[in-house]
């Protein structure tokens, strides 16, 4: 079983051009900023949105002119769309019933799925009486209960709370790894993508801007968006040996010599801050200005403008010692060994 799709959708102000080739058993995470076309892609695969041009083939079978109810598809909607007049249980049982499973059996299946998402006790509640997260879990159960060959998940964990989320994620992961169909997962959460996906496709403004394994994408982001997503400082430039002249201004020295256009990436934790230009081994040092400061748990993330602009993670102690307030002038220092350069 494998999916082969070429999708073209045109709307005023937005166009989607996407090629997707996914093997059976593979989970692809679709990442991208708001409005990139992720939901549109899923709706198109499900047959709810007309393709202006292109084709969808699942396991050699043409899907693009099959009506949505005949497609072996399960879709979790971003806003759940639970049937308001049916209880949670009946919502989940709806799919099996529609496929001709007898009522009692469908209910057993549904109860089972509700159990798995931890909502057995809310089986009889109507959607209006469910909280946001509860509704999302029911929606997940509903889509999984039809055992689709093409599973489409639109931010299936977004409304889940921090305590349920790891469990449901682990559960979903277990389910997906046992699953031999094709799965496309839309998410905004890098961690979800890393944990759940075999491959990441990054969509920006309707176009694929990067594609690869989670670790590959995380290590070598090719766009600003991906870099932020995985928490790296990313710059594009031209390499001549170990010197990279950055397109946005400034220079960096890297430990991985290259030639021609490259990306450079390094984590915020690799950036050290000094009140004055430091003497010593680090080869990259440049003056920057503090733009913003955010406390993230036990580390403080500092947004610095300069050539190049970077993010730095420092300890609360350093903030106090350096007197870091917006507007303060400091030096940013990065060891060349921390700067990863790869062809751009």
């Amino acid at each position, binding site marked *: 079983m494998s999916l082969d799709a070429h999708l073209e959708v045109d709307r005023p102000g937005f166009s989607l051009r996407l090629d997707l080739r996914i093997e059976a058993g593979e989970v692809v995470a679709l990442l991208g900023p708001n409005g990139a076309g992720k939901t549109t892609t899923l*709706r198109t695969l*499900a*047959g*709810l949105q007309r393709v202006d041009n292109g084709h969808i083939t699942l396991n050699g079978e043409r899907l693009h002119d099959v*009506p*949505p*109810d*005949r*497609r072996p*598809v*399960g*879709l979790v*909607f971003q806003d759940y*769309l639970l*049937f*308001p*007049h*049916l209880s949670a249980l009946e919502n989940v049982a*709806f*799919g099996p*019933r*529609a*496929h001709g499973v007898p009522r009692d059996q469908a209910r057993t299946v549904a109860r089972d799925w509700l159990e798995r998402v931890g909502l057995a006790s809310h089986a009889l509640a109507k959607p209006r009486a469910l909280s946001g997260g509860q509704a999302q879990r029911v929606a997940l159960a*509903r*889509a999984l209960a*039809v055992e689709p060959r093409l599973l489409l998940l639109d931010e299936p964990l977004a409304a889940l709370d921090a305590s349920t989320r790891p469990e449901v994620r682990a559960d979903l992961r277990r389910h997906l790894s046992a699953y031999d169909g094709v799965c496309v997962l839309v998410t905004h959460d890098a961690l979800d993508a890393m944990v759940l996906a075999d491959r990441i496709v990054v969509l920006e403004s309707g176009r694929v801007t990067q594609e690869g394994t989670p670790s590959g994408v995380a290590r070598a982001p090719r766009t600003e968006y991906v870099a932020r997503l995985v928490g790296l400082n990313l710059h594009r430039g031209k390499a001549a040996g170990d010197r990279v002249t950055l397109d946005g201004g400034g220079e960096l020295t890297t430990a991985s010599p290259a030639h021609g256009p490259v990306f450079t990436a390094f984590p915020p934790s690799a950036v050290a801050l000094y009140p004055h230009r430091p003497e010593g081994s680090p080869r990259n040092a440049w003056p920057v200005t503090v733009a913003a400061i955010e406390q993230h748990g036990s580390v403080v993330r500092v947004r610095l403008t300069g050539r190049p602009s970077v993010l730095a993670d420092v300890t609360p102690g350093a903030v106090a010692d350096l007197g870091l307030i917006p507007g303060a002038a400091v030096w940013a220092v990065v060891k060349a060994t921390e700067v990863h350069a790869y062809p751009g």
Partner: protein
Amino acid sequence: MTGFRRPPLLLLVPAVLGLAFLVVPLAGMLVRAPWTRIVSDLAAPGVWDALRLSLICATLATVLATVLGVPLAWLLARSDVPGRGLIRALVTVPLVLPPVVGGVALLLVLGRRGLIGEHLNTWFGISLPFTTPAVVLAEAFVAMPFLVLAVEGALRAADSRYEDAAATLGAGGWYTFRRVTLPLVAPGIAAGAVLAWARALGEFGATITFAGNFPGTTQTMPIAVYEALETDPDTAVVLSLLLLIVSIAVLVALRDRWVPTG
């Protein structure tokens, strides 16, 4: 459920005026009704037969109008058949047609010499006019547009994405219609059915023209009222009040069924 909010005066005033406009004439009838004669009027032969026939025929007509009308409303609201605007306008035809003319039109089609009736008669020996089924047909003809348009309005106001969701779960058109669309617009269908039932109950012109007027088989209450009007208007008022009170009682009793609480 959300409590707290009081109806704004700008809505309350016209609402009360509107209600008064609809109800005060009824009050006028009650005030002027010949109370002393009510018992004898209601004991007159045929009154209760006419009432029973009215209730039965109006209910059957509503069922017929619902069975045919809800799919028609769905077609108008959800599909993209060409010429929908014209079809929708054609649906209103029986509303605009003076009911007597509607009855004539039905005779022209289903009568002994009508376009279709002729064949019904020669092939199956069926003659519809002057029978109880004709009453049901005449009432359904007049009442169905109300149902169709009310249900179409409700369908358009409902969120069609639930139907998308049903499709992704493998539900075909009919299953989706039955399990999702229908329950979602149930209040609209209920409102439409009430409209249709009430209209059928009050139908006069088309019925008397197409179905005729024979005590026990085709004489409904409005026809009995009309006859009484000719000789004794006070009796007509009493009969009308009886029809009203029975229909109000039925609607109040049905309330819990046709107004889904929620």
